């Protein structure tokens, strides 16, 4: 069952159990986007505060499976301090990687590379993408 072990990496479990940047902030300078996946019950909200083209803060809130929760947590850590354009590119690359599509290997996904195992579990791609799709929407 090496596939499963490859999915449930230690880093993922660590973020699942100790989620970063959890909890929303009531402040209109934050842009918020919420996505629900009614078939599995996942429900994730991402909040982003960007200024002068730089992401100053990123928050997350919700519930769901370990993959969706950990991917939200890791997302928020990676994105803070990035340029908006750079952040979009990273998100795009990440989403391609987990969907087993072609992706730009020159983009550094940092800790999010731990989700590379998702591509072998087509039914879990949605779990790993939901936070990142919501994040992209906060930048629109």
């Amino acid at each position, binding site marked *: 069952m090496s596939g*499963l072990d490859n999915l*449930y990496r230690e880093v993922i*479990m660590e973020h699942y159990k100790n989620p970063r940047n959890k909890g929303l902030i009531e402040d209109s300078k934050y842009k918020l986007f919420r996505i629900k996946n*009614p078939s599995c019950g996942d429900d994730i909200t991402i909040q982003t505060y960007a200024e002068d083209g730089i992401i100053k803060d990123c928050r997350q809130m919700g519930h*769901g499976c370990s993959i969706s929760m950990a991917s939200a947590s890791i997302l928020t850590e990676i994105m803070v301090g990035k340029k908006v354009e750079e952040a979009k590119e990273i998100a795009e690359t990440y989403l391609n990687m987990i969907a087993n599509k072609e992706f730009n290997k020159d983009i550094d996904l940092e800790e999010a590379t731990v989700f590379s195992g998702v591509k072998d*579990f087509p039914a879990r791609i949605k779990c790993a993408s939901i936070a990142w799709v919501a994040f992209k929407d906060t930048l629109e």
Partner: protein
Amino acid sequence: MIKNIWSKDFPQIKGNNIYLDTAATSLKPKSVIEAINHYYGDLSSNIHRGMYEAAVESTQLYEETREVVAKFINARDDEVIYTRGTTSSLNLVAFSYGLDNLKVGDEIIVSELEHHSSLLPWQKIAEKTGAVLKFVALDKFGRITVDAFKKIISKKTKVVALTYVSNVMGYITPMKEIIEVAHKYNSVVVVDAAQAVQHLAIDVVDLDCDFLAFSGHKMLGPTGIGILYGKANLLNDMEPFEYGGDMNEDVGKETSTWKRGPQKFEAGTMPIASVLGLKESIKYIQKIGFKKIHDYITNLHRYTIEQFKIIDGLTLYNPLSDTGIISFNLENVPSHDAITYFAEKQIAIRAGQHCAKLICDWLGIYSCLRASIYIYNTKKEIDIFISVIKESIEYFNKLGF
């Protein structure tokens, strides 16, 4: 895998796969697949309007199926409407009967056990007409009882829309008694039989329901075909739900008239191949008989539950399930994490809200795992299922869940 006397008829069962997802869709016996092949491979003809041999045979098989369905539920031929599935059947009732017969202040009784397909059409009709949705209180096990039903019904109740068997809890609703009460209040009763029709003999005369809906694909039949039973006098007064070819009697530029009976509701080319397949699925079920089906599933279900009860780290939500439906969670493991383990072990069960969010809310959970047992499952399969559950608990424990 050791097969039982029925599973050999199901070509989908092969290798080490264990199928415990019948509540989502059932497997199909060879005879159903052959009927579909006969239509596509030999006939491939439209019905009702052709005079050549293939058209005549297709039409005959199509109408014979209606008789078979009618006998199956003890209805008259002209009370059996073909639809796309349970969901379409229930929408037809809501948007034809409901929209025209409900008004501000009327009440519609539903329950938190409803599948979204039995809830949402009525939620919309309530919004459109100003009628009010009322939820019958569930007992502490999550069941609909006659007592609770008597408490909620009133002179304002015009429609009762309830599930005969819950697709999450597996309980059989005491439908006959409920219908008796409802009729005293002149309320019309719509029965969602999607999970009932494969488990228990349904007699619409004895039950005295006004409408009853089910799907072919959950009862060993094809996808894309469902049935709506409706009492003839109600159907006669109802407006069509879809308009088009074959459902009209006369067409003019400004106004048109409709056929009577089920044909009024069958607009355009119907899913002919699926209709023909449905006939064989009903015949297959009838050949076995509901007593045998019930006894077999009850035994296997009891056997499974006994073992569930002694597994640590597992929450079972419906120990009293009347059918083969078992809903549970591994403790502290989100169902979508758990399900991946079972999938890797080639065990087909399902995770999620099962299109029944209100009962998840009622249970206080976001989602759960569901296994569902049918006649082609075996004791051996259950043994493997149980041991994989145990393994999985250990696996997720070790990971730190």
